[in-house]
């Protein structure tokens, strides 16, 4: 469990980091919190020849909570977000942090690292997809572009990011006062067997729409339009509506089977976790 040899580079600024990765090519990797990359290197499953340490780029570590939008810098740690004041509309982001690994992981792991790694149950991916976040990335030569979260996650650990691009920040442009994330895992801190997130549009006791996102049901986190249509049709914010939404979600997915959980068990978890997430969301 020791990595093969690699060359270490320390980035001085975002532009320099992007230029360097472009120059070094596909054998180069950015090192942020190292909570996924380093274990993979120790198991020799990842063998980058060059590591570009972006840990010193302070300009990427920030939380900017405004009334209409929340911007989180890519080098911000999960723990920083967990303990930050994000304003009233973004409690769900802060509360989702407790599902991420264990405290030591949260104090080192970063928002950008999690989004770029794109695990199928990653809380940041789930939040980004649920809340239609925008992911701002920097490329070589000062190039910048914005990727809609809905387009970002393509499959197993695969994103729309080019090899030479670096995530700069994630922008949540819409407050979500009635949103919740919930998960099931055998142990605290495990990757979720299934995770569910909902963001309800609630007014005077009624639901007028909402968004549903799931993790652990496929190669990447997904939105579930079938379940969202149930919310769109609207109704009183009650168990019946949530069950209908959850049933639609469970029917819409075809979860994988593995040692931890079979397909039908995962499907049942989808249903029960969506109900739980709806109830938590509406209770806010």
């Amino acid at each position, binding site marked *: *469990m*020791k990595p*093969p*040899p690699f060359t270490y580079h320390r980035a001085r600024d975002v532009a320099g980091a992007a230029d360097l990765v472009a120059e070094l090519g596909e054998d180069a990797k950015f090192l942020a919190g190292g909570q996924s990359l380093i274990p993979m290197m120790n198991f020799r499953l990842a063998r980058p020849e060059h590591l570009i340490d972006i840990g010193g780029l302070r300009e990427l570590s920030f939380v900017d909570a405004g009334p209409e939008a929340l911007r989180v810098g890519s080098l911000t740690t999960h723990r920083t977000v967990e303990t930050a004041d994000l304003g009233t509309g973004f409690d769900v982001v802060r509360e989702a942090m407790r599902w991420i690994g264990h405290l030591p992981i949260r104090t080192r792991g970063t928002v950008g690292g999690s989004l770029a790694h794109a695990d199928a149950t990653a809380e940041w991916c789930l939040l980004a997809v649920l809340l239609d976040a925008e992911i701002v990335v920097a490329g070589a030569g000062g190039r910048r572009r914005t990727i809609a979260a809905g387009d970002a996650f393509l499959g197993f650990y695969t994103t729309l990011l080019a090899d030479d691009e670096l995530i700069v920040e994630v922008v949540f442009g819409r407050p979500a006062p009635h949103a919740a994330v919930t998960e*099931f895992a055998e142990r*605290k801190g*495990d990757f979720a067997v299934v995770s569910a997130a909902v963001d309800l549009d609630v007014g005077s006791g009624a639901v007028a729409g909402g968004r549903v996102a799931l993790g652990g049901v496929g190669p990447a986190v997904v939105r579930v339009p079938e379940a969202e249509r149930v919310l769109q049709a609207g109704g009183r914010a009650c168990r019946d509506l949530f069950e209908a939404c959850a049933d639609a979600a469970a029917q819409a997915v075809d979860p994988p089977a593995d040692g931890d959980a*079979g397909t039908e068990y995962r499907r*049942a978890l989808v249903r029960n976790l969506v109900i739980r997430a709806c109830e938590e969301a509406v209770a806010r």
Partner: protein
Amino acid sequence: MTSEVATGDRANEPGFRADGTWIGAAVSRKEDPRLLTGEARFVDDIHLPRMLHAAFVRSTVASGHITSVDLSRVLEVPGVVAAFTAEDLDLGDITPRLDRPPEEHTETSMPILARDRVRFVGEPVAVVLAEDPYAAEDGIEAADVTYDVTPPVLSEEQALTPGANAVHDEAPGNVLLDVSMFASDGIDDVFAEAPCVVHVRARAGRQNALPLETRGVVAGWDARAQQLLVQTCTQVPHQVRTVLAGSLGMSESTVRVLVPDMGGGFGIKCVVGREEIAVAAAATRAGRPVKWIEDRKDALSASFLAREQRYEARAAFDETGRILGLDVDVLCDMGAYSCYPFTVGIEPLMASSEMPGVYRVPAYRVRGRAIATNKAPTAPYRGVSRPQHVMVMERLVERAARELGLDALEVRRRNLITVFPYTGINNVTYDPGSYLESLNLCERVLADEGWYGTQRSVAEQGRVLGIGYACFNERTGYGSDAFAKRKMQAVPGFDLSEVRMDTSGTVVVTTGTMSHGQSHETTMAQIVADKLGLPVDKVKIQQGDTDRVTYGWGSFGSRSITIGGTAVALAAGNLGGKLLDLGAHLLETRRDNVELADEGVQQRDDHDRRLSYQDIADVAYLRSHLLPKEAEPGLQASASFDGVGDGTFSNAAHGVVVELHRDTGRVEILRYVCVEDCGVAINPQVVDGQARGGIAQGIAGALFEKVTYDENGEPSAASFLDYKVPTACEIPDVAMHHIETPCLFTDNGAKGAGEGGTIGAPAAVLNAVNDALRPAGVELNDTPITPQQVFDALTGALEVAP
């Protein structure tokens, strides 16, 4: 021993008991300051000049013949210094022996490095030495080993299929041990005529004992001492020395095994590991010290495992719930190799002999088998088979209660041994215990806390609670007679202790036991302090050094405080006798007119006439011309102790309340009560810690941990991501209660306390889960129980148990 005057003076000493003794005092652990401030020294903290780092080239196939080992590219890797194959090192095998006939036991050997065959994924094939551990791992990647792969044997079904590949040529049917014992006359008639016969089929998952500190060793030739110095984290330093000297063809005096601080062992470090030997041999060859630290991946896949067993058990009962007979077939999947010194008999022999446990069983038959498979080998793991067979026994009792419409606790009470000593059908004599009292107290605690009412009231809200118990004993303090019954050729049992006092009146005592976290430095010091009327901080224990300790069997089987503690007490008592002899002589009074008190010898008839230990030591060492003519100079004494009869039985009852979460299948433990009786607790805080840690490992086996393999024999878990060791978040607080039934043959009445927690937890948790599942009409008897199984059981997706 200690006078009331001394008590008054010491009233403020931490842990010192008001009655003037150290036995039973919750003394703060002497080990803690260094462990908590980073001053402890573990194997990995040892850095020697010119030290190399080892890594092992390990088999990538579960079963096959090695066709070639090419290390030439390894030597080209920057930083690599040397690489050795089995042929290069030419070491003797490890061959654990049992004095049993060939029809019962087939002897097999474990080579230090695989020579011609590999038998599990992870088996060491070659060792690479490099300037740092990174280069060593680069080196093993460059090794080129080719195999002629044969189909692996990965389950007991496969192993026992006629025509299956033989894991060892010596055992064509893959059965390494097959014993049938205690077949009571007429037992078939008992079952044929019994009003109630219940069956339990159960499987227990393969587990890893998982000490926080993985295995590791630093070895090197000490030219000044003309010795091979081997610093290793082992529970059995002298046995490592014996095997090492034998394997390397050296005399034992040229090997010194030294054990630094240890971060747990739980049994897997009480067998001799092949890596320890290979590293020592490689260091000798390289002429430089070598360190090997097992990484977590190897610890999970290529270390020693345990616990994978299958039971076919039935029990006969009369209408009132009394046990009439017990008939058990237990198969233990021991993996690829037999371990030294315990052999593949460790689990099946334990199960066979101890299965009746706390119950009166009038007729008994058992068949115990050890099966070889192409999986990492097994070793003792805390509790050794008892977590599994107690679980099966307790399930049989529960099932009979259901069949008979009786309360399961009442069925237990009707069968518990209550008159001692009791000699069971298994030829084991049980010393006094509190089997009934502990169960009654355990039930009362849960009842008083209102859990039965809670169970009923929350059921109306649709919540699912279950309450379960386990009732068991634990044989501790095995002496050599008890071990000899197993017919191991190396027979553990006794312990030796040497004690000496220096000129400042402080005491050093050796023990042949080996603390790997059990606080011996504290508890053994308490025992000596108690004997000699000293403060604990004036007693220092020495362990884990084969040059300083004459001989020892190390620590396993909850033997340390019973056997080692008694040897220490006897040695201290002998030193006390010597102090009294000298004291009487120097005070010029009769021997029967002196006593030990307050760090000195005083006259019984005149307490003002006294000599401090320092005064006496001063004469014994510095002015020996004042000694009586027949007295030897110095203040030293020794003693040995061996367990008596069948050992001493600790016992406990565990009570558990679980909630099954309907939406996820999660098993949440709401309450855990442990009523334990380990005789006199030398240090109750240490006993509590042992029980709590053991219970955590028992819960791990019941609900979380399982080592699995794919169809090629590749282990599925390389990290804690996949091997689900529970965290503090999954382990409940445990309410501890104590009953004290002193052991009659240990010096201070103590029984062993190391394993009980682990033994009771799986049964109690399983019974609680099955109590909760009662309305669903489903029983779960295989461990670990997974959330999906519970979910399926609650939603009717599981077949109803036969």
